[in-house]
């Protein structure tokens, strides 16, 4: 009995020590390298602009899906997320209507391809971007969310909601330089592009997930 109690007394601090070591490992800070910038389009996605935000599964069993009627085991279990948001377009090259708006549908999934041990929490996504009067394209992105885990899990694990301002560049692929822009049509037709995603979180909790955040998808042509 003493052996079992001793093992448990050692196991818990050992596991905690390993988690702290991973979260504070300076080799994996969670910031993706910035890609080359160029003429293009900047899509700033603000929470308050959302026409409708839908999470078929938040990725955490204790966070409810929105709306509840969407819940299905194969979506819930695989932790997918769908968002339909409005975005403002700004700056960029000749192809973008400056300071206009765009329709974006984004579907994404946390995958098992990332290794948290090496600072990887990989989310794969496809963006469907429609710029009225301009054209449309798809963006395939691969983002590393380790930065979120590293800087926000500890405060939230202590029972406190995260409140602050943390910014991350998250895109790491699938191609060198960022996300792949494909299926371009309208005024974007015939161009080649890449993308990178920056995200800023202001408020999050373990119960509700990220509740106040802003994302910027920069698409360079």
């Amino acid at each position, binding site marked *: 009995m003493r052996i079992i109690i001793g093992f448990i007394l050692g196991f*818990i601090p050992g*596991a905690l020590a*390993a988690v702290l070591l991973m979260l504070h490992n300076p080799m994996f800070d969670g910031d993706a390298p910035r890609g080359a910038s160029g003429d293009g389009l900047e899509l700033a996605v603000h929470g308050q*602009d959302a026409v409708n935000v839908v999470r078929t599964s938040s990725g955490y069993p204790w966070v409810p899906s929105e709306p509840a009627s969407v819940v299905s085991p194969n*979506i819930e279990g695989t932790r997918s997320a769908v968002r*339909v948001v409005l975005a403002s377009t700004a700056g960029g090259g000749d192809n973008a209507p400056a300071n206009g708006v765009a*329709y974006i549908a984004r579907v994404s999934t946390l995958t098992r391809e990332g290794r948290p041990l090496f600072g990887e929490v990989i989310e794969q996504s496809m963006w469907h971007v429609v710029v009225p009067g301009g054209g449309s394209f798809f963006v395939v992105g691969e983002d590393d969310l380790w930065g979120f885990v590293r800087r926000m899990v500890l405060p939230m694990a202590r029972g406190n909601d995260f409140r602050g301002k943390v910014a991350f560049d998250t895109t790491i692929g699938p191609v060198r330089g960022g996300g792949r822009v*494909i299926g371009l049509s309208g005024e974007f037709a015939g161009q080649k592009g890449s993308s990178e995603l920056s995200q800023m979180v202001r408020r999050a909790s373990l119960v509700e997930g990220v509740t106040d955040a802003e994302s910027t998808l920069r698409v360079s042509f």
Partner: protein
Amino acid sequence: MRTSIIIGFLAGIAGALALAYTAPFLPHDRVRSETEVRNNGGRFEQFEVAGSADVVSLLPAGGDAQTEAVPSGARWYPDLAPFSGEAAVYRLRNASGVVIGVASRVKGVESPDDVQWVLHIPARGTIALKGAGIGDAEIGSVVAGEREFAGLVGEWQATAKPNGGWRIETLVIVPEPPASLQAAGDRS
């Protein structure tokens, strides 16, 4: 006692590192894909949107007073008023009716008949479709895919159901590699 604490401590470190390496907390339940291989080597697969119960969100085209927005009261942002298209997000099912993912559909991007779909199956990947509407049907080609659908080319057809659902059929093939790569393969 001291020895068991030390062993427990080391086991705790090893266990946490093993969990962080394998990430078992991200399960992917893959429903067996119901594909049918055609004579030309193409892979045929059918997807379904069962009906109004599968509508996650729906923004009807401006001026369409008969179609009800989901959720109720949702509307296009005023600055998008020049965009006369319609957009929807659905739950996506396989041919057997099992929910396997989600689908996004946008119509009227460049012209009233222009239509685009994104089919997202978390356990398998994503496929993007572009085409045009002809009556109650929509046809077009596969423009992009990722993960299991990466590199595939092919065509698709979607047929509207009276209850608001859709039947989406895809026929895809893996394109022939360039002749230079084939020659290299033959030499090896």
